[in-house]
């Protein structure tokens, strides 16, 4: 009996730690985004709150906590309140199998990659609920577009992750990382990483980055919440903590995409320099993840956004066929070499 | 083509409707009667020698209760031949009907609506003659010389401001 209680308590503590980590990451990511966007746009970003604006996000969170909770008069109250949580749950469930470093993983499932792709589709329901329940035609547009987009882009994402699975012959994330110790020409370091093992894997890495950005609803694919057209798309009517939850979910998504990219393609927590093991693996891991996060932030402030039908064309006519070709190519490569 | 030539061409075709030709500097216009205006406008736009394909401006003017006159001024221009023409149509201050030319020059669509909005000039044949700049339920026509602001609008008191002498 106490065994059960201990396990249950352990699980709750673990879940809270992950949640705390997510909040911390959102803090850092928002600050990074504002600073990087500021410097790209030839200005400085937040400078006053704390040294060079470091405490800005904390101040913003405090403000959001105290904001009035406004629900539109004719909105569907239950769906309106549930939507942020459903969205967040869809992203949060992925964290059960996501490693944070060597040996730091919640549940080392043997079907880790498959579980991730399956569970992350829950966010679509949250988006549609948010768009529909706001009783606002613009939110409806945003919700519909978002559903179409997320469902479509899951395919290139899944296919690209399949490349890593094929090269390792396992769905287990830890084993995928460990298989990248030794690679080209028997050398370790960067030559072990999946993305340069063969040209198809390299292509698959870039397909993954593009499709992952679309999954995370970032520009140039941020039509669901395009600021200039739909005010805030599906999230127009949300304010205060409910909106903060959506925001948290968006940054959690960014983290998930980047971590998967680092694990499957960039060698996880192995260092790029052959034979070096002084710097702990966790630092390399964070470095790779933040590189992909930086790529996503950089793309957001440089490119205009795609129209909804161009988005669909990009996915179905370009990314998906390329992803399929990659799968076949990698398969043949493994067979022959 | 000069104003004289255009005037003589119009007089040949429409004789009765052409009332006056004025050629003083800063006052060049042809005054027309309103009833044949749509046919004259079609003639002005479609005849190859004239070919007025651009309506530069459509203005409503109110001369005040003393002269009891209101007019509509059309400034036409031909982009091919590069000649100008000003056409005026005059009428009474109440119930001033003018045939609409918004079908010929689409510029006139919104300009006629604005003239209706500000002066109360009714353009017959306009497909959608509604107020343009003021709310649909506003009373009165503001640019008329004897316009009095309405007392209340939807329960809000409209303040009466006397025009002050702004320059000594």
């Amino acid at each position, binding site marked *: 009996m106490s065994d059960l209680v201990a396990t249950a308590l352990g699980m709750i503590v673990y879940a809270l730690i992950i949640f705390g980590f997510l909040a911390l990451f959102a803090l850092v990511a928002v600050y990074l985004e504002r600073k990087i966007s500021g410097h790209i*746009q*030839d200005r400085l970003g937040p400078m006053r709150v704390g040294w060079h604006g470091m405490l800005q996000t904390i101040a913003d969170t405090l403000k959001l906590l105290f904001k009035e909770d406004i629900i539109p008069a004719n909105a569907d109250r239950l769906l309106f309140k549930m939507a942020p949580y459903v969205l967040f749950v869809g992203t949060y469930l992925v964290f059960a199998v996501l490693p944070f470093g060597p040996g730091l993983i919640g549940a080392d499932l043997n079907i880790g990659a498959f579980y991730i792709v399956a569970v992350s589709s829950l966010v679509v329901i949250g988006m549609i609920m948010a768009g529909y329940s706001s009783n606002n035609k613009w939110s409806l547009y945003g919700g519909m577009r978002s559903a179409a987009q997320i469902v479509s882009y899951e395919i290139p994402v899944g296919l690209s992750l399949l490349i890593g699975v094929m090269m390792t012959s396992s769905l287990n994330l830890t084993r995928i990382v460990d298989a990248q110790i030794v690679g080209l020409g028997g050398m370790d370091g960067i030559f072990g990483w999946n993305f340069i093992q063969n040209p198809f894997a390299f292509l698959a890495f870039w397909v993954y980055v593009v499709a992952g950005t679309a999954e995370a609803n970032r520009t140039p694919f941020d039509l669901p919440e395009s600021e200039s057209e739909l005010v805030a798309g599906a999230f127009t009517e949300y304010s205060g903590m409910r909106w903060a939850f959506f925001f948290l979910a968006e940054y959690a998504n960014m983290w998930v995409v980047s971590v998967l990219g680092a694990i499957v393609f960039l060698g996880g927590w192995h260092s790029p320099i052959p034979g070096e093991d002084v710097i702990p693996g966790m630092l390399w891991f964070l470095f790779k993840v933040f590189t992909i996060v930086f790529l996503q932030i950089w793309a957001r402030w440089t*490119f205009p956004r795609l129209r909804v039908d161009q988005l669909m064309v990009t996915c179905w006519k370009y990314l998906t066929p390329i992803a399929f070709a990659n799968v076949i190519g990698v398969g043949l490569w493994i067979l022959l070499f | 083509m000069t104003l004289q030539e255009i005037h003589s061409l119009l007089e040949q075709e429409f004789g009765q409707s052409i009332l006056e030709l004025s050629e003083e500097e800063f006052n060049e216009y042809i005054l027309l009667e309103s009833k044949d205006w749509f046919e004259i406008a079609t003639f002005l736009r479609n005849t190859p020698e004239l070919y007025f394909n651009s309506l530069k401006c459509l203005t409503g003017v109110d001369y005040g209760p003393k002269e009891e006159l209101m007019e509509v001024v059309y400034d036409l221009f031909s982009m091919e031949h590069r000649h100008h023409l000003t056409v005026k149509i005059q009428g009474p201050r109440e119930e001033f009907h003018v045939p609409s030319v918004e079908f010929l020059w689409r510029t006139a669509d919104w300009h006629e609506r604005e003239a209706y909005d500000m002066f109360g000039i009714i353009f017959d044949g306009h497909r959608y003659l509604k107020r343009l700049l003021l709310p649909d339920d506003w009373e009165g026509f503001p640019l008329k010389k004897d316009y009095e602001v309405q007392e209340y609008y939807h329960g809000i008191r409209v303040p009466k401001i006397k025009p002050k002498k702004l320059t000594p």
Partner: protein
Amino acid sequence: MRDLHTEEMTINMGPQHPSTHGVLRLRLRTDGEVVTGIEPVLGYLHRCFEKHSENLEYPGVIPFVDRCDYLAAMNNDHGYAMAIEKLLGIEIPERVEYLRIIFAELQRIASHLVAFGTFGLDVGAFTPFLYAFREREMILDLFEMTCGARLLYNYIWVGGLSHDIQPGFVEKTYNFLDHFEPKIQEYNSLLTNNKIFIERTADVGVLPAEVAINYGVTGPQLRASGVDWDLRRDEPYSIYDRFDWDVILGSEKVGVLGDCWNRYYVKILEMQESAKIIRQALDDLPVDGDVQEAIPRKIRPPKGSFYFRSENPRGELGYYIISDGGTKPFRVKMRSPALCNLSVIDEIGSGWLVADIVAILGSLDIVLGEIDR
């Protein structure tokens, strides 16, 4: 299975919206995402300019005229001042003419920069907006140096100018031009040649030349449809005929004639031409002369009525002025280019997606102050 019954939805791109460039309300009838009809509802910024002008003396109308198209205030002043000067028959001193051209062209660059920046913002590119405003700040500094105001100047008076330029102005303007001309290459590489931007704007909202002339569209929007018409060259006013510059037309380089990309690109190239004109004017600027010597004491034009037009950054700005011989105008009607430009949106916007309406509206470059007066 019963046939699915789909209805058209009427949505409101309301007066408060991030990309309607002011308080404009568009009622869109949509079938899914495809727009089948657009009805603009105007009047949210109506300030009865024409009624006010009947109670003011002729020079007193100039601040009001500024506030109509607040992004191109110098050009508004210029048009009105020239109209009254023509009525009075005043001769303007050389120095005043050159200075007026310099300020009008600087204002044209500033206005096109705003159009360029906000168009990028509408399409989703956040960064060109800040780059455009960085350059515009330099122009506004030049204006502030001369007449003390950044946005609404009351600078070009009937017969002259309100202030003479400060010492150091000419050099600062040369510095600005040297800094600005390479920046256009930067804008081109950031936005103009960007594949995503081209996909969003090329072939979208095509405006044929005949339709444009019929609707009264003028300015860069008309030239992008291939019509070779620029008032500065074809009906020259002030001293524009002394300068050497090209009229920019739309091209079929990317997309078709008259699409959003062309309307945008014509503005970028026009900025280059304006910079050329400013350089030539600065080189030939007469050194001495009083800018206020030709200003008449009392403005009492003869009786008459006429229409005068000039080239605003947005198109043909016309003033129809009726004078009854007194010191106050009898009627001032402002023919605003943005009103005619906006009226064409139902014609060219139908059949496109909602996201394209935003792009088309941005490319038409409207200012609500001018539409509603």
